[in-house]
């Protein structure tokens, strides 16, 4: 194999273990340097996943065990029922004079999914509810800069015990606040504001999404009193 052919094969697949390629490597050992460079560059693409990701993935079956059974049942529905549903949806979103039919479905669907996305995110981060760090206001505001908000100086009346950047239909900041009524999760989200306050709940948490000048603010807790307490503090201590 001449050098030109070797270079082409090496650049196409530096992990080529075919007989002719390995023979070409053996016949000219200096070719190993090119191969080493190409393989080293490939290895740099092998980034490692965050440690917490595995826990999130392991939790999926438990969090979705009921849903799996429902999905099996849904596949057994007769085709006519699916067609009927599709027709109903199409008629519901049929453009009315003066409206933009394309914008309505996305906004409605996104709002319907937002509460579930928030709950799913909180369930995927159980460790955040247990940690007890001392997160300063300065740290919070560093993260808040990209979201367009800021905690005022006297916002440090809240005890923030964890903080994490995340993604919920847009860039978001996840705070955990220890209030007198218990632990509260606060999510500040840079995504399309909801039309009005959006309550949501599952068998453990309840929460509410409130639109803000820039996006949405969600407060989630296991009890309603905790939500209200933190909501009042946030209302007076965040500027946009």
């Amino acid at each position, binding site marked *: 194999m001449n050098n030109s052919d070797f270079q*082409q094969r090496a*650049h*196409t*697949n*530096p*992990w080529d273990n075919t007989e002719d390629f390995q023979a070409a490597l053996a016949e000219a050992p200096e070719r190993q340097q090119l191969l080493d460079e*190409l*393989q080293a*560059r*490939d*290895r*740099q*693409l*092998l*980034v*490692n*996943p*965050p440690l917490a*990701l*595995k826990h*999130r*993935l*392991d939790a*999926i*079956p438990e969090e*979705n065990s009921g*849903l*799996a059974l429902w*999905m*099996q049942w849904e596949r057994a529905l007769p085709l006519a029922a699916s067609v009927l549903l599709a027709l109903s949806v199409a008629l519901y979103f049929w453009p009315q004079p003066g409206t933009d039919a394309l914008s309505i479905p*996305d906004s409605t669907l996104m709002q319907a999914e937002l509460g579930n996305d928030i709950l799913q995110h909180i369930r*995927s981060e159980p460790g955040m509810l247990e940690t007890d760090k001392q997160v300063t206001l300065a740290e919070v505001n560093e993260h808040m800069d990209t979201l367009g908000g800021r905690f005022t100086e006297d916002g440090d009346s809240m005890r923030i015990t964890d903080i994490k*950047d*995340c*993604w919920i*239909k*847009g860039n978001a900041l996840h705070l955990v606040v220890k209030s007198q009524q218990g632990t509260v999760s606060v999510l500040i989200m840079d*995504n399309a504001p909801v039309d009005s306050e959006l309550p949501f709940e599952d068998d453990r948490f309840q929460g509410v999404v409130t639109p803000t000048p820039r996006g949405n603010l969600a407060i989630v807790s296991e009890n309603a009193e905790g939500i209200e307490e933190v909501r009042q503090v946030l209302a007076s201590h965040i500027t946009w």
Partner: protein
Amino acid sequence: MTSKESDSKPVIDDSSSRQQRYEALVNEYYTDIYRYAFWLCRSQPVAEDLVQETFLRAWRALDSLKNTGAAKAWLFTILRRENARMYEKYRPELDDIDDHAVPEVQRDEPDQALERRMLHNAMVQLEPEYRDPLLLQVIGGFSGDEIAQMLDLNTNTVMTRLFRARNKLKAKLGENTDNNGSHS
């Protein structure tokens, strides 16, 4: 380096419970899936969500995976579709290259960190038609034929794009080296 070495051992025993089969999938492939997701979307938090969504869909559709040997390609395909779906609906703002976080490796020496950042930037600028086959080969360990099937291309096109992808990266990194005044 890739998952090629692990392809010889069975990933999922067909007699295992549904949960055991799922756990085997996660243990075997979540690292490669994350790596692919990261370079597809170039953002760590989005990649995490993509991976979670991929395995959620895999869990729901696990009964449809009849051939355990096809599990890896199946997962990669789910991820590609999920990435396309999320990008189309919610993430045009991720086109801003400055928002992308370079994966940190604590043990990196400063030179290594610089090289990693340079490669990261070069990959971000690589066109998708070159980046996708390269990632499937390097991270997924797929052959040219397998990549061709996944991307609906012919094999010769895939091989050409792999060759050009590496040459483009080399050229881009060479430019960055000149700009930084250091040697790679």
